[in-house]
């Protein structure tokens, strides 16, 4: 979310800490969304085995890669569209 940190001259301690904290929160949320979705897509819910099968493991790896790719392309598209529509106002209702 570095595009939200547009240069105020001298951020206070609290602001700097909040910025780092926020950045890490964004990453943590992305991580937990990925785990939730990829588990749903790849892992068999009957739990007849306690270990990931080879197929499930490979599926998780690919799901993770696709999730990052999708995440990035959605993020780019949203920025483009938001600019084209003239600011986040319209999109956020």
């Amino acid at each position: 979310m570095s595009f939200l940190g547009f240069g105020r001259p001298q951020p206070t301690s609290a602001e700097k800490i909040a910025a780092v904290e926020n950045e890490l929160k964004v990453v943590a949320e992305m991580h937990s969304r990925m785990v939730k979705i990829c588990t749903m897509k790849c892992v068999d819910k009957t739990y007849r085995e306690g270990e990931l099968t080879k197929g499930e493991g490979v599926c998780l790896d690919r799901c993770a890669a696709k999730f990052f790719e999708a995440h990035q392309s959605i993020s780019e598209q949203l920025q483009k569209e938001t600019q084209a529509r003239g600011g986040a106002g319209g999109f956020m209702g």
Partner: protein
Amino acid sequence: MDTGLTQAENRELEQRLQKRQVKEFMNVFGSLVDNCFTSCVDDFTSKAMSNRENGCISRCVLKSMSTQTRLGERFGELNAAMAQEMQKRM
């Protein structure tokens, strides 16, 4: 909205609201990713997105934005109508 706050309180409030808006935006963005990825990506024989998947995602983003805008308008109207209704009753 008449908040009955002083100017200083209003400044403080505005800062909080800005934080809230950022948070709100992150939530909308997160749900959009969840929804579009879940709906569009189902093939895990490759680790790169296919053209079909990319197209689906891109259309999903457009449609989600239109949905957000349309429901935002309705929400605004309905909320204003409800507020008026409530004031009449008081």
